[in-house]
């Protein structure tokens, strides 16, 4: 049996089984979906290879699936993170109702992602793309927050994207009479300038929606924040990467063949949009008080980096973008799991009320710490490698103002990174969280695995460079040089991550042993009420928490930028449109005689203009 088909079938069957087995026990349903995803992952890693091709003839179309170096990277990412998320989901979703419904859509979206990656022709690409859309929509409305408006917004924008893609691909077919992606890649350069401009715009719109680029991003924050966290881990981590996947095909493989001016303009505009996206989104993340929202906005910002890298399109930039994409999948997945764990134990994710969970949930904190370090791009963890390559590529390709925006957003990212750790795990101990326990092992394990991956890839980025390089050469960037632990840019400057990690670890161990931990023994733990307050003794119920308006000064400073949100305009537009529609449908006055009158008038008009209409 062909392994690609097998993977899809396993996931599909798992989805259906999970839906049915809910009747037996809700827990079983989660376990079934976990097993399905795990076995699919095993098949993917041990059986799947890039020789096999699936050909399915449906209607008058032939769906072709296959695996290549480029899709393998994303496939591995999806499989690993989806397995972790579903493992996490078993206990996270324990006790929630309609688990069958949830797991069904969970597995369906995983299946859809794998299908997208396997697709060699646009029809199956589009089919799986839409399956992904509606399954994720059904999960967004699962929690039933905010009257489903978020779901609708997500659905509208996904529809805009999906239909842009549909239009693009039928137009493509009318040009080259083939749905194969490779045919588009080879014949794109031959199209007329207008056709290139049209197709480019449509495809970029299609993928820009999923990867939440500036004008198309408004669905993302609430959608990420309102879904169950175990799903958001793959929603923000992986589903958005499908947009990146498509961007990769378009910007690298397809557009590289075209020498047309408009495409170049698109690239630049896209890069700038992405940069602005990352800055604005970061600012919004800084002023959030809800941990989910914070992470959601930060996801948008990070996706901005990735799209920027792809749009720049030099070897280093693409490498950086793909590397960041994988890193983002890992650490953002882990962080959403962390929030999920906190939410499950405490019931809230409001950073102004949470605090000092570090002693209650040490492992969760450890995972959060590592992921945050990676997110902030601080060496020696994986996030730094991607950021470094991105900046170097920006400089060496003379995008000297983009790099300022990138730096601005990543510096501001430190703010919310600290806010996240401080607001949830540090600070004053709250009464209501006195008897909070660490989450069960099956929830800790995936988080720890995620952070471990970050350390490994931070030390030996070459482990990723190798497949990334082959993927890029598959996309037609020629052969890309890489090194196990040495980063280097076009000007021959480099950073040796191995030395970095060595020196950091050695020095840290020395300092920690000889100074830190030695006298930890001698000290005794005191509550956070027992602090230096310039003399006066705080009473028990005196509030010493500094959590509300944490970054008020910064907010004041950036106030001019934040005055208007994008969805304000969208909402105005939508309302105006609906009012207009409402006005239009007044033609259906309930009066039967009016309808009769319409008929006669229409007849008369036809007869009068008959010579113009018919001949």
């Amino acid at each position, binding site marked *: 049996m062909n392994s690609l088909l097998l993977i899809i079938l396993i996931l599909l069957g798992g989805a259906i089984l999970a839906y049915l087995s809910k009747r037996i026990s809700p827990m079983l349903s989660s376990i079934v979906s976990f097993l399905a995803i795990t076995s699919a992952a095993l098949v993917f890693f041990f059986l799947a290879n890039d020789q096999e091709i699936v050909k399915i003839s449906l209607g008058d179309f032939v769906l072709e699936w296959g695996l290549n170096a480029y899709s393998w990277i994303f496939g591995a990412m999806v499989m690993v993170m989806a397995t972790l998320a579903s493992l996490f989901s078993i206990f996270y979703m324990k006790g929630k109702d309609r688990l069958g419904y949830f797991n069904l859509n969970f597995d369906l979206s995983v299946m859809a992602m794998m299908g997208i990656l396997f697709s060699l022709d646009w029809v199956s690409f589009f089919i799986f793309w839409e399956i992904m859309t509606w399954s994720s929509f059904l999960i967004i409305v699962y929690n039933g927050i905010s009257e489903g408006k978020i779901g609708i917004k997500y659905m509208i924008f996904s529809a805009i994207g999906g239909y842009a893609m549909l239009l693009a691909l039928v137009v493509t077919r009318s040009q080259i009479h083939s749905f194969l992606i490779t045919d588009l890649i080879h014949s794109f350069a031959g199209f007329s300038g207008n056709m290139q401009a049209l197709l480019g715009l449509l495809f970029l719109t299609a993928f820009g929606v999923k990867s939440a680029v500036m004008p198309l991003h408004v669905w993302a924050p609430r959608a990420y924040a309102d879904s169950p966290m175990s799903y958001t881990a793959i929603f923000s981590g992986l589903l958005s990467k499908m947009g990146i996947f498509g961007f990769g095909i378009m910007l690298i493989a397809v557009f590289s063949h075209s020498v047309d001016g408009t495409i170049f303009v698109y690239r630049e505009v896209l890069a700038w949009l992405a940069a602005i996206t990352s800055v604005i989104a970061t600012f919004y993340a800084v002023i959030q008080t809800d941990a989910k929202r914070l992470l959601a906005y930060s996801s948008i910002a990070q996706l901005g980096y990735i799209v920027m890298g792809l749009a720049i399109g030099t070897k280093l930039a693409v490498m950086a973008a793909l590397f960041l994409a994988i890193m983002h999948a890992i650490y953002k997945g882990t962080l959403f799991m962390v929030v999920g764990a906190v939410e499950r134990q405490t019931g809230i994710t409001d950073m102004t009320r949470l605090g000092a969970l570090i002693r209650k949930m040490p492992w969760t904190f450890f995972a959060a710490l590592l992921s945050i370090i990676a997110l902030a791009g601080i060496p020696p963890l994986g996030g730094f490698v991607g950021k470094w390559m991105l900046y170097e590529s920006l400089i060496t390709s003379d995008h000297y103002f983009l790099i300022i925006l990138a730096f601005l957003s990543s510096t501001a990212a430190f703010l919310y990174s600290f806010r996240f750790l401080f607001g949830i795990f540090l600070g004053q101990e709250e009464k209501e969280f006195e008897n909070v326990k660490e989450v069960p092992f099956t929830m800790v394990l995936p988080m720890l695995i995620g952070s471990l991956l970050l350390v490994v890839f931070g030390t030996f980025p070459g482990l990723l460079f190798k497949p990334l390089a082959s993927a890029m050469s598959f996309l037609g960037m020629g052969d890309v040089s890489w090194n196990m632990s040495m980063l280097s840019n076009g000007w021959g400057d480099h950073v040796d991550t191995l030395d970095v990690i060595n020196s950091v670890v050695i020095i840290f161990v020395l300092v920690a042993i000889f100074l830190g931990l030695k006298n930890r023994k001698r000290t005794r733990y005191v509550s956070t009420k027992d602090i230096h307050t310039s003399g006066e003794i705080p009473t028990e119920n005196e509030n010493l928490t500094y959590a509300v308006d944490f970054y008020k000064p910064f907010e004041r400073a950036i106030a001019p930028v934040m005055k208007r949100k994008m969805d304000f305009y969208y909402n105005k537009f939508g309302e105006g449109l609906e009012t207009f529609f409402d006005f239009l449908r007044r033609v*259906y*006055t309930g009066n*039967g005689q009016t309808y*009769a009158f319409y008929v*006669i008038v229409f007849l008369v008009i036809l007869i009068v203009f008959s010579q113009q209409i018919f001949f």
Partner: protein
Amino acid sequence: MDTIDYYQIMSIGVYGSAIGLILIGLYAVLMKKHLTKIVIGLSIIDAGINLLFIAIGYISNGTAPIYSSQGIDLVKTGTPMVDPVPQALVLTAIVIGFGVTAVALSLVIRLYRHHNTARIDQIKSLKW
């Protein structure tokens, strides 16, 4: 020639009256507010159309298309026979029109019971 062609005049009269009936019916349907009048208008339109059929089927001083002995004799003697098809159609059309009118009137009664009015512009609970 100077002899007046009665056939011409008659046919003009018949066609004219048929068209006129249709127009009268249309006027009733579109302008009258009372449901019953509208229904009457509809049946007037039907009548007009039927008349039009007969008029078209007619051939000047032809005989009825009935299979009878003297009918055959007449045809033998060269008298034309009017086209039977329109008459057949008219029969069907009349029956259908009757059915429609019956349904319409029953609806009118029910509407009047429910709304206590028979003015069509006041029966607009379904709109937009």
